[in-house]
């Protein structure tokens, strides 16, 4: 289970393994590892209680997305005039592809397009929270999480705090 928290390890694996098949997995959480949830295939996912309480990783993803990512991808992932709505595109993307694109960037420049996603692989503000951003977008994309700040959240776990401290340095 420790591996699932070692984000840099995952990045390396994703980059060397190439692109995996598109994701169509059931996002239902089947495992709770110290406040971080995983689906049946072992991918990070969200967990939203009936009263709307979100897991801390979803909340953390909300915060990071609406700081670093929203300047291009729009508030709450709904897109802008120049970057895609991730609430839609993340649905068609595997976890491995997501990690690879965020870390390595993507360029789509032609006569009609001037879209460039920069590589965030060296940015701890993003890479330390990459799973959180993925979990948040998955929750948004599945329609389980409405726009805006989640009203209620689970507490930050000690594991999360340790990971954050060691990753952010």
């Amino acid at each position, binding site marked *: 289970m420790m591996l699932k928290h070692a984000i840099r390890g995952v990045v390396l694996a994703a980059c060397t393994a190439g692109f995996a098949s598109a994701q169509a997995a059931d996002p239902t959480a089947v495992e709770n590892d110290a406040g971080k949830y995983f689906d049946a295939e072992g991918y990070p996912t969200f967990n939203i209680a009936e009263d709307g309480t979100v897991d801390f990783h979803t909340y953390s993803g909300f915060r990071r997305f609406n700081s670093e990512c929203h300047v291009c991808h729009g508030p709450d992932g709904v897109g802008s005039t120049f970057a895609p709505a991730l609430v839609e595109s993340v649905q068609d993307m595997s976890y491995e592809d997501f990690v690879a694109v965020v870390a390595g960037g993507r360029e789509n420049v032609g006569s009609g397009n001037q879209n460039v996603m*920069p590589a965030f692989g060296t940015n*701890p503000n993003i890479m330390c929270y990459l799973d959180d951003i993925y979990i948040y977008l998955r929750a948004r994309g599945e329609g389980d999480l409405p726009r805006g700040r989640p009203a209620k959240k689970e507490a930050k776990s000690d594991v999360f705090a340790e990971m954050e401290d060691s990753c952010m340095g």
Partner: protein
Amino acid sequence: MKSGLLGAVSIAAVTAVAWSASANEQLQTMAEEQPGEWVMPTGNYANWRYSELDQIDKDNVDQLQVAWSMSTGVLRGHEGNPLVIGDTMYFSTPFPNNVFAVDLANDGIIKWKYEPQQDPQVIGVMCCDTVNRGVAYAPETDAYPATIILNQADTTVVALSADTGQVLWEVQNGDPGKGETATMAPQVVKDKVLVGNSGGEYGVLGHMTAYDIATGEVAWRAFSAGPDDMTLLDPENTTHLGEPVGVDSGTATWEGDQWQIGGGTTWGWISYDPELDLVYYGTGNPSTWNPAQRPGDNRWSMTIMARDPDDGMAKWLYQMTPHDEWDYDGVNEMILADLDFEGEERKVVVHPDRNGFAYTLDRETGELLVAEKYDPFVNWATHVEMDPESDQYGRPQVVAEYSTEQGGEDTNTAGICPAALGTKDQQPSAYSPETKLFYIPTNHVCMDYEPFRVSYTAGQPYVGATLSMYPTPESHGGMGNFIAWDAVNGEIVWSIPEQFSVWSGALATAGDVVFYGTLEGYLKAVDMETGEELYRFKTGSGVIGNVMTYEHEGEQYIAVLSGVGGWAGIGLAAGLTDPAAGLGAVGGYASLSDYTNLGGQLTVFKLPEEVASSE
């Protein structure tokens, strides 16, 4: 009759432009005496965006029609406006920053087109779309031919022959590898061209740089923070609110080396007073957006600068928002006007700031005369202290409830007005010397702001706050207003509610008409006195460009670039939503994408011939 006269004047002037020695004097003369042209990005040195052309007036503007239009071939946000010099129109596009020279005398054919080669990676480090706010023009002198100056996204500054588009020189103004980019329109002053930088969200240190127009050599560079030899401040003679700034004020108000990644970029508009021989511009937000990580006043971010254009030395400064907690960049236009204060005419600079206060200062001394809210919903500060005896003199009096510093890291501070977009952003206002009023395009948006700790990596975003923005609660539901402002009394004269932020620059004319564009794509004309709408036309895409006017063969034209995008295109294109605000499904919630689409287009308007000739 009047329009015929103007035509004769401008033809005579075009043939007479070649003999003045200084670009400055000649450019100034052109701006003042040739209303048929639009020779600098800001209209004139005073940044009025006012034209003496009056063929189109408040009685006939409703008959305006499209004369011609042109695609720019680029789909990103189109800020800025064309220039018209003689028979040629010049404009630049968003990335890749193509420059067009269009022959107005020859059916609008493209005389030349300059296509820079830039690494597209720069697109990814532009915080708020790949906008470019236009090119500058320098008339021919003994030292150089008529020149067009482009400030590319990747910070390459290029001088082009105005006649042929050939490159005269190229210099690198910054390092896009560190997130340093360029969006602002350069300004030609004397034999120099002034160029600013962008990248406050990447920890870029702001600077204003003057290049020799003949050679492209750096004449001076003034940073927005650092020791005095970097900021070009004189500890004794440079003043802040009448007091000497003291030694190394650009580092003394920072903790440690934070100033080196401290922001204060200079991406707004530049004005110039030839009599006082001072240039004016503002500096942007300090980095990061998390105020807890940069204790102190963070001088000289968020500051109005008055500098000598020859050596860059600052005469006076005024920091509007010490220790910013909201991203209220101070880069908006600095409009120079001579206004009557109780019978005394004062030379002032008027600046409607992002922070929601419109400032009027004596532009010779930097004395603060007026600082009033130009949107009554501004709530982060109660007022700006105006008592020179107070230790708070000139400082905004921050409301604790809306202080993101006092709220602290990892705390969401809700209901702050205005949002980080500001009560206005760079979209420039117009000023009419007839009404002595300022016509200001504004945003009417509030926000929640949660700062948190970030670490710096060169070339990576360095933000440190989570924001959500929404239409001002308990107001008209829209996200913008277009207002007329009295800068002497600090009062709104009239205000037009708009559904979306007014992200277009305004134009005032002697025809008693004010023009502006809207995000839905309308060009609107309103009565200068009353704000009553007189005309609207929906262009191909949302308007974030600035409206300009020119005259050709005796006819007055109105021109504007369409092309939705910019910062407005980030939040507003998607529709701003605040589930907690409980406003119901009013207009503000509608998505802009229901109204308009991407597109880059120049649209040019004129009156039907029979109407124009009857004037």
